[in-house]
């Protein structure tokens, strides 16, 4: 059987524990315990990391719930949300130089990473204000250039996530119009793992859960050890301790596995995923062959499903988080 596994991560506050775990030896410790090998690789470009996972180059990847549905799952790669790490609670936001409310966005040109959770956030914001997406003009803008984009004189509004959001909000004259704390629990950050690999190698899943919760305990630790860990993560993500802690504050991190299990088994997550798949279908993200939003099935705890039960490709499976909560790792 497979002995060595690769997972990929990209810079985002909720995923920074991964590189820290790798650097500090936590990954090795757990991998050795189960007699396997786990390699943690950084990818600069978020979309590329998911593409690589979808193409089979990685066994696991850090990603959001929406991207898990639209990229690997819609691409036929059965993916299990092994770890539900956090949800964005202000980490994604709409910032404008001119508008103070969502309603004032009408008719504006808005820069964002198209078809990403930012796009979803905007759609939800507009929805809440009684506007539709066609009331604004969306301009696809790469995340790496969002800060520069906001400084450009002709840019009025951007939608982005942290750490970029913090940079943009710090600009003189910037108004935070909307953020993800208004739709709590809808933008979920996961570790997705190939379902087949996981079925064949349950030890891989156990090791990952073990790594994650040991590291998160450090992140949440208010003492010196925790500070040192957070400082290292801050550095790695290109900011300082204060900046990193501000981002953490906007993140609902499930430091305890029991919290994560509770979230992943609550009925709200089904509602969220229904909203997400509706948005995805409306934007053609489920593939051109998709006849309805039901085409890709989503599985939840307790054998509940959304959409095509015969084609379940994304599974919210709390088994391993439960094991961590029960201390059975």
């Amino acid at each position, binding site marked *: 059987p497979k002995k060595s596994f690769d997972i990929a991560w990209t810079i985002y506050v909720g995923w920074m524990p991964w590189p820290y775990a790798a650097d500090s030896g936590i990954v090795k410790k757990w991998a050795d315990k189960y007699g396997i090998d786990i390699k943690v690789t950084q990818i600069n470009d978020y979309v590329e990391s998911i593409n690589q996972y979808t193409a089979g180059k990685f066994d696991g990847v850090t990603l959001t719930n929406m991207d898990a549905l639209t990229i690997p799952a819609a691409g036929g790669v059965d993916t299990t949300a092994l770890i539900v790490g956090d949800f964005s609670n202000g980490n994604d936001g709409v910032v404008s130089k001119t508008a103070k409310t969502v309603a004032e966005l009408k008719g504006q040109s808005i820069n964002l990473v198209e078809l990403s959770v930012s796009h979803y956030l905007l759609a939800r914001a507009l929805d809440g204000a009684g506007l539709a997406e066609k009331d604004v003009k969306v301009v696809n803008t790469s995340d790496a*250039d969002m800060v520069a984009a906001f400084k450009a004189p002709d840019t009025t509004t951007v939608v982005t996530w942290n750490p970029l959001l913090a940079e943009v909000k710090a600009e003189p004259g910037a108004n935070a119009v909307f953020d993800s704390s208004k739709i709590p629990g809808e933008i979920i950050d996961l570790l997705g793992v190939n379902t087949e690999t996981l079925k064949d190698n349950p030890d891989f899943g156990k090791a990952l859960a073990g790594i994650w919760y040991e590291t998160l305990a450090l992140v949440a630790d208010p003492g010196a050890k925790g500070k040192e860990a957070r400082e290292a993560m801050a550095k790695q993500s290109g900011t300082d301790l204060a900046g990193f802690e501000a981002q953490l504050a906007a993140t609902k991190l499930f430091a305890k596995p029991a919290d994560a299990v509770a979230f992943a088994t609550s009925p709200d997550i089904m509602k969220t995923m229904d909203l997400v798949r509706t948005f995805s279908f409306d934007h053609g993200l489920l593939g051109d062959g998709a006849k309805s939003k039901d085409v890709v099935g989503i599985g939840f705890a307790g054998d509940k499903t959304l959409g095509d039960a015969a084609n379940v490709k994304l599974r919210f499976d709390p088994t391993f988080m439960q094991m961590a909560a029960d201390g059975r790792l």
Partner: protein
Amino acid sequence: MRRAMNIRPGGGARVLLALMPFLLLALVYVFGSAERRAANPNDKLLPPISEMADTTARMATEPDRRSGEIVLVSDTVASLQRLALGLGLATLIGLTLGVALGVLPAANAMGGPLVAVISMIPPMAILPILFIVFGLGEMSKVVLIVIGVAPPIVRDIAMTVQAIPVEQLVKAQTLGASTWTTVLRVALPQALPRLIETVRLQIGPAFLFLIAAEAIAADSGLGYRIFLVRRYLAMDVILPYVAWITLLAFLMDFALAKLARGAFPWAYVGERR
């Protein structure tokens, strides 16, 4: 046996030989695609050719759900406009600056080192500055193309003009020419054929910068589409788009080559191939 270097395939054989590698590549693709599909029926990486044809046909004929425009057409129009503007401006700058640097020793002393340094700067790295100075609209895309493509044109034209035998410049002066009329009637016309050749060489880089700029901020364009659908690994869109860009580049190259030969017969006298 004749030596390999003496074996010259005739007309028919040449065509066959030229087609062979393409057919081979197509074959490899078809098999690779079939194999991946067999392993995963939802595989997106190597879609069968039929699927790509379907997607292309849809994009080339049916209006888009969101914008109401025919995607392939609007993308192509948007990109070609940017490209034409960028390449056009770069050509103009290249010709004016290049001829100036080539004819005037003082201008060359001043501008030569500057252009040499600028041409070594990787344009992609200074994109943020471009955005802030020129905004995120069409302007910054055009400027990126110009910055990437103009310096080599300038240098090449300057070198071409400097390579005009000094005898000709002296001759023009003995016929009463001023610096201006020498430029207009001696340097410029002799730089034009080379200008077209240089611009031909810059079509590839221009597309590169266009795609890079469109990847970063745009709401239409060939590069925009490729980088947008890259999100969901839609190779059935990416591959036809890449082929389409390649074809466009090829056609532009061909048209320029024809133009040069038509407009400047004197410069192509020695050409036989």
